[in-house]
């Protein structure tokens, strides 16, 4: 990790009213979000949500239909020597299979006007030193991802834009990537990383930008999103209505789900159990039902009619 020099502080990424249409298909629809320096921001959404298209527009590889993207207040094309300021990993296929890994990085240093002495450092950082003289055509997908990351870090950039960087990585590789991104963010860099798997990113990201159908669903800190991943208590009782009244009086919002079953959102066994006992309610079954982060993500991304909003925690604690 020490191989990466302390970077200049990252700069913010701003996407404003971005729209991209391919004929009749709207891939990105009036998308607006921002990415702050010093944090890892997860750009999340299912396949086809418009993530890659957005990143390509951000990097000037594609033209927007309308809207704008800037990095540090400038369009990518207006950043002098952009490889010194922005590192990008877009796909694991940007290699000539007959070129050796080291030669690939050498090529990038020439193109970007970068210091070739950093090649050894980044190869060491991504764990490819011993394979550096092999042709990339013989690399596994995971090794190609690592090489892409090495290329992105060559310029010691303050901003990193990574599209599905964990594709092809084994569990150890994913853990390594997580630690690397956390470390890079701790140095003040701006890190935007896309994924279609929230669970994989949950331990890595500070903020989330969730898109679906090309539109923004949610933007905010992950901590606010996790607050939605609440638990509920399912209670089967012959006294459904009486228990509902008791739970309501205790500050919960109980929901009947059948003739003899009640769902009490936000409740825990420790909280609800004593209430049931003190009121002598007959209970046949008491079970905890948890809604995890992934199901919150699925709910957000499959709801195609919702409007974009910042994450607001539901009122789930007893008043």
């Amino acid at each position, binding site marked *: 990790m020490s191989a990466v020099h302390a970077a200049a502080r990252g700069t913010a990424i701003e996407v404003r009213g971005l729209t991209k249409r391919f004929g009749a298909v709207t891939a990105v629809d009036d998308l607006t979000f921002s990415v702050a320096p010093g944090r890892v921001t997860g750009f999340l959404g299912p396949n086809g949500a418009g993530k890659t298209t957005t990143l390509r527009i951000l990097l000037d590889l594609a033209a927007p239909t309308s809207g704008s993207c800037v990095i540090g207040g400038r369009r990518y094309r207006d950043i002098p020597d952009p490889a010194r300021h922005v590192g990008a990993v877009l796909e694991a296929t*940007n290699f000539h299979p007959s070129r050796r890994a080291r*030669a690939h990085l050498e090529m990038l240093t020439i*193109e970007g006007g970068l210091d070739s002495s950093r090649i050894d450092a980044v190869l060491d950082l991504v764990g490819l030193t011993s394979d550096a003289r092999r042709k990339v055509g013989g690399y596994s997908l995971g090794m190609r991802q690592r090489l892409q990351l090495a290329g992105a870090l060559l310029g010691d950039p303050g901003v990193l834009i990574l599209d599905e960087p964990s594709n092809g990585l084994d569990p150890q590789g994913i853990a390594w990537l997580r630690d690397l991104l956390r470390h890079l963010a701790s140095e003040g860099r701006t890190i935007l990383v896309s994924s279609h798997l929230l669970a994989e990113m949950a331990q890595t990201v500070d903020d989330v930008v969730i898109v679906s159908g090309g539109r923004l669903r949610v933007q905010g800190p992950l901590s606010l999103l996790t607050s939605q991943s609440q638990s509920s208590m399912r209670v089967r009782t012959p006294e459904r209505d009486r228990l509902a009244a008791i739970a309501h009086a205790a500050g919960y919002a109980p929901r009947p789900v059948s003739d003899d079953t009640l769902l009490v959102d936000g409740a825990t066994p420790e909280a609800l159990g004593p209430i049931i006992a003190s009121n002598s309610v007959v209970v046949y079954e008491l079970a905890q039902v948890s809604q995890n982060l992934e199901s919150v993500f699925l709910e957000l991304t499959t709801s195609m009619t919702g409007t974009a909003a910042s994450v607001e925690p539901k009122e789930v604690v007893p008043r």
Partner: protein
Amino acid sequence: MTAFPRLVRAELYKFRTTPGPWVCMAVVVLLTGLGVTTSFINGDHGVVHFSAPTTTEELRRLMGAGYTAAIVMAPILGVLCITTEYRHHILTSTLLAHPRRADVLGAKVVASALWGLFMGVVSFAMLAAMGIPLLLSEGGSLRGLLDQVGPVVPGMFAAFLLLAIYGMGIGTLVRNQIAGVILALGLTLVLEPIIVAIFSSLAHMDVNFLPTRATQAIAGGLTPHGPGGAGATGTAHLLLSWWLGAVALVVWGAGTAVVGYYTTFRRDVT
């Protein structure tokens, strides 16, 4: 180093570190060797014999032994320069390093021209290594051969250089590598001879501005080598003057590149 020179350097580095340009170079060596050999094969009243070239036309044919290599391999090199980027998605990393596409295309033009020139140097090195000893061993005149340096060599270097740019323009237009190579070869070896036959011979129209005819004009009126192929300079008076031939090739190269830039190179990179 400012951006453009380093982009050119990067393009030359790409040539050096992939097999395609070296395969082109190997074929240039082979075709030049074949050209040297056929320059010593002469026909006389139906009898073919191996002997040193003696006439001005025969010596010019030997000096231009790399002509076929130039018209076949230089355009292919140019095609590879751009289509390899599309085929292996390397254009993405190129544009990330330098998003101004006109500069990138310009660097490819210069790099293709330089590598084309390098192919010409290698071709003449092959000629010198094989042709001169063979000429001397057959009792030919080295002085007679050297007299052909002026009429042939500058034009041949220009042909390698300009045809590489022309090939790059074709590659920019079509983007697909196989289609580009087939188009480059098809235009040179199939379509142009047909057009020349139809428009020049039948309709008596001037088709000397076509790339191969323009190449002949700048390279001393040479034609492709081969048994029975005259390598003739006898039709040289029908061609453009050398400088008009050079202008025609520049227009072909720059024209295809500019059209390719506006029609395909500025498109979204996906």
